[in-house]
């Protein structure tokens, strides 16, 4: 048996559940013990409010010995996770709440182990994997990239906008060949998997009519995106910072998108191939305006995506 406690509340007692499904317990523990980098002995000292992690304890000495699990483990999640696998494991443990038993030492104010608790915690894992930051005008387009702009920029008063940065998690896009093959750069930048090889404007019924910066921009704005510094309200989170580039031809005519991630670099997904964070010279992408983009020589600008974005 395995006792799991969600380290989520500050004032009231944290929810605790006991997983009795032996097969599931062993499978999860094997994952945890296989990669010790995922776990810590306690909550990260810098951890603040919100869902910080899971405390995992074996309730059987036999299990603890077989899997070299002494005492308890702390699985940091969300902003404190070692990588995306920690959040996947946390989701797996939280999903067992429905078939779990309450701990015998449950506090009187403990929440019932029901579907609403499970949904709440799963939602917390998703949102805590993102970081909300301020996108400040000081991070504007470098001069050399600005000179390449082929868009009639609408002028916005330089504003500081709240945006979200999600953890870099290429496995989500790469591990399943069907997902990898059927989602493109627009899916990745929007962080919305549709399996339709999404096209700007198609969700709004107003697809691009030519592959140029102004036309692909128009189509993306129709889907609900906004130009950078035209702020979305917090209710539209996640609001990701993305960038559009175009390969103008002759011959090779296409568009491509990048998305900024929590680690500070940018990720992208070239067509049906693997999501990555490297440019065409194999360098980590610090800024899509200045990285090696191969034939995608025109930089069209930065944009924000939003929760209500229509994408198909």
């Amino acid at each position, binding site marked *: 048996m395995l006792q799991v406690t969600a380290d989520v509340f500050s004032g009231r007692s944290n929810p605790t559940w006991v997983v009795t499904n032996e097969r599931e317990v062993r499978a999860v523990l094997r994952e945890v013990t296989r990669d010790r980098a995922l776990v810590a002995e306690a909550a990260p000292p810098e951890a603040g409010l919100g869902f910080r992690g899971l405390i995992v304890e074996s309730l059987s000495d036999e299990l603890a010995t077989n899997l070299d699990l002494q005492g308890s483990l702390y699985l940091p999640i969300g902003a404190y996770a070692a990588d995306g696998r920690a959040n996947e494991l946390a989701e797996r443990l939280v999903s067992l709440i429905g078939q779990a038993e309450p701990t015998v030492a449950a506090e009187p104010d403990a929440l019932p182990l029901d579907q609403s608790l499970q949904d709440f915690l799963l939602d917390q894992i998703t949102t805590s994997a993102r970081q909300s930051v301020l996108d400040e005008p000081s991070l504007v387009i470098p001069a050399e990239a600005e000179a390449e702009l082929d868009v009639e920029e609408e002028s916005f008063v330089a504003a500081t906008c709240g945006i979200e940065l999600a953890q870099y998690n290429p496995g989500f896009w790469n591990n399943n060949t069907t997902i990898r093959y059927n989602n493109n750069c*627009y899916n990745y930048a929007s962080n919305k998997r549709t399996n339709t090889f999404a096209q700007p404007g198609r969700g709004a019924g107003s697809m691009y009519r030519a592959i140029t910066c102004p036309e692909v921009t128009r189509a993306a704005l129709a889907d609900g995106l906004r130009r950078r510094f035209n702020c979305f309200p917090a209710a539209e989170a996640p609001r990701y910072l993305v960038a559009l580039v175009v390969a103008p031809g002759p011959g090779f005519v296409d568009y491509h998108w990048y998305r900024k991630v929590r680690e500070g670099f940018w990720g992208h997904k070239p*067509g049906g191939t693997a999501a990555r964070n490297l440019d*065409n010279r194999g360098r980590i992408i610090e800024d899509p305006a200045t990285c090696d983009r*191969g034939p995608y020589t025109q930089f069209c600008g930065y944009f924000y995506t939003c929760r209500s974005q229509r994408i198909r």
Partner: protein
Amino acid sequence: MRRIVGIVLVLLIVACGGAGTSQEGAAPMRAEIDLYSGRPNPNWDLSAEEAAQLTTRIERLPPISSGEIQEGLGYRGIIVAGSSGELRRVTVSNGVVVVERTGRTEAFADTDRELERWLFQTSKGRIDAAIYELVANELGVP
């Protein structure tokens, strides 16, 4: 720009639906130039004869334990997808051929990119002429 592909890649767990065929080369196959990021790639259907020839050519290739397929932006290679039968997808890129069949994935050496050039030339007259010329220059196809 390149990704190392292990010979024992992920085993594809695909349910057997009884669609197997002993003549997988005769199954309909669609080829595409793996070129774009946003737009769908240029594609064309292989004739039954070309599909059979592709299968025969693959059978003659030497297996390898690892190789590097082209990644990143721009021309990456050619992908062939089978719509039925055991053969699911063939990726021909940068001197490596990755063959995904139901339940297993194998890699082969495409010496001098011979298979890639042959496969590409089956697209002549079936894809946009400007794209053909662009890739022909990259592959050194006259």
